């Protein structure tokens, strides 16, 4: 058995920021366990720029953003074990992992930070009719092929789903000489950031068809085409609207799912909407001393926010290890009201004595609407937003003086007040 104060599972942006913050807060023995052969996580294949505008005030590519933290980790006292896959976490915080260098590892931790990230929703989840030729893959797989392996997976492309990775890949494939015929989105709005629709689709005259999906794939060995169709408001294809499109590559960008197999196996309760753990304001799960941050907790739009969330978790874990956490704990839940799909953190300690930021997503597009924060029937804030969209995470502040006035029966909710 090896002993560490803090075990961080995952060496992407979340894991690195959490480990560094914990070190800064005084934790001595920290290890990052990473299953890949290098640190950086998914940023290594995200070679487009736009990372770090918020955190560094600079426009960096994914690998550059990751490198800032990789260099800090190298200079720190944080240990890193690469090629190391965590298999389980038991009730006493013993982490079992398989390492290609060290074999089977058993590590006793005082605290654990879960930072495993997320994965793309696969084709199987879509139940698409048709044959199973090559040339159908997730947008992230194609991103890896093009940006890391250095080859083009197709020449004539259809993209299903308008998530950010799909939009980014529409531009990338176009720049590399492919013809991107259309991006189909089953919803009446895009799930991607507006700026990506502008600079990845509009700039290259790639059409975005809303309320449209792929109903069939064609071809035996290799994809030869797809049939797309309009859908009604129940997302059912409308007969007569089918259109055949000749293509040899279908990319799927239909959502990201936090990778919580370990979390589930450790019996840590999950939120049904975020599919990540239920956490408090320091990102501590309902299991004492186990924290979660980054895309394993909630799928983020921007890595900058992942970094900030991970720093909270790192600080929380440090306080837990050093016995500096709040002396008193009284939890209340945060309640998503009208128009709000979820709130992270799901519960807050009203004895925390600090301002708490609540992060949330709305369920539909709202224009000129207000985001209202209510505590015990009193309005705390009601900021007007020109536009609220499911693809863009919002945050609201719950100030310390409001929190100090709450009791164990208090109700805190956030809802959308439509114009």
């Amino acid at each position, binding site marked *: 058995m090896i002993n560490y104060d803090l075990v961080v599972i995952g060496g992407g942006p979340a894991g690195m920021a959490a480990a560094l913050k914990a070190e800064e807060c005084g934790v001595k023995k920290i290890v990052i366990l990473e299953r890949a052969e290098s640190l950086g996580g998914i940023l290594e294949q995200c*070679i487009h720029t736009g990372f770090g*505008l918020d955190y560094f005030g600079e426009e960096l590519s994914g*690998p550059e953003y990751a490198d800032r933290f990789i260099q800090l980790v190298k200079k720190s006292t944080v240990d890193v074990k690469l090629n190391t896959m965590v298999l389980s976490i038991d009730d006493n915080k013993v982490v079992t992992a398989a390492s290609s260098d060290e074999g089977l590892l058993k590590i006793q931790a005082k605290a654990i930070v879960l930072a495993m990230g997320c994965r793309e929703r696969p084709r199987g989840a879509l139940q698409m009719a048709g044959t199973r030729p090559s040339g159908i893959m997730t947008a992230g797989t194609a991103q890896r092929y093009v*940006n890391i392996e*250095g080859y083009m997976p197709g020449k004539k492309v259809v993209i299903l789903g308008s998530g950010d990775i799909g939009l980014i890949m529409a531009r990338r494939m176009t720049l590399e000489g492919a013809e991107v015929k259309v991006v189909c989105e089953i919803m009446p709005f895009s799930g991607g950031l507006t*700026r990506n*629709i*502008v600079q990845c689709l509009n700039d290259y005259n790639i059409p975005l068809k809303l309320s449209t999906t792929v109903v069939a794939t064609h071809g035996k060995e290799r994809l030869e085409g797809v049939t797309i169709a309009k859908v009604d408001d129940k997302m059912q294809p409308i007969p007569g609207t089918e259109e055949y499109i000749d293509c040899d590559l279908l990319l799927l960008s239909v959502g990201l799912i936090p990778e919580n197999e370990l979390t589930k196996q450790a019996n840590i309760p999950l939120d049904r909407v975020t599919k990540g753990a239920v956490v408090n304001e320091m990102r501590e799960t309902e299991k004492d001393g186990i924290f979660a941050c980054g895309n394993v907790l909630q799928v983020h739009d921007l890595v900058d926010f992942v970094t900030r969330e991970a720093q909270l978790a790192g600080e929380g874990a440090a306080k837990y290890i050093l016995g500096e956490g709040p002396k008193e704990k009284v939890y209340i839940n945060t309640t998503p009201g009208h128009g709000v799909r979820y709130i992270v953190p799901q519960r807050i300690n009203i004895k925390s004595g600090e301002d708490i930021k609540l992060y949330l997503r709305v369920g539909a597009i709202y224009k000129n609407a207000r985001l209202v924060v209510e505590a015990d029937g009193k309005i705390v804030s009601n900021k007007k937003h*020109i536009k609220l969209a499911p693809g*863009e995470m919002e945050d609201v502040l719950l100030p310390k003086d409001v929190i100090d006035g709450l009791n164990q029966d208090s109700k805190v909710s956030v809802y959308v007040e439509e114009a």
Partner: protein
Amino acid sequence: MKKDMICVTCPRGCNITVEYEGTNVISVTGNTCPRGEKYARTEIVNPERNIHSTVKLIGGKNPVVPCKTSSPIPKGKIFDVMKEIDKVTVKAPVKIGDVFIKDVCGTGVDIVCTNNDSGK
């Protein structure tokens, strides 16, 4: 003339309306910060974008290494710049900030390396 556009400077994505004649901007509305006004004016006068790609890498851990424009280039030159990037082959080791092409296509902008590869 009037043109509606969405600012891409930051993830907020403000809806901006620009009134202009030729390349003479008369008014900019809808932006929520000064960067939005600058973006809108540039979009009318000389739209610019950052681009990124990969170049062939010999002797590296990976067969390619990523690169980007050191600052935005005129939108109309994107495909010319891509052609120049396609011609480049570099040898490992490479590191972030290495200049692969100086003053690409006469833009005054360099193509720089955006990842480290110490070689096999």
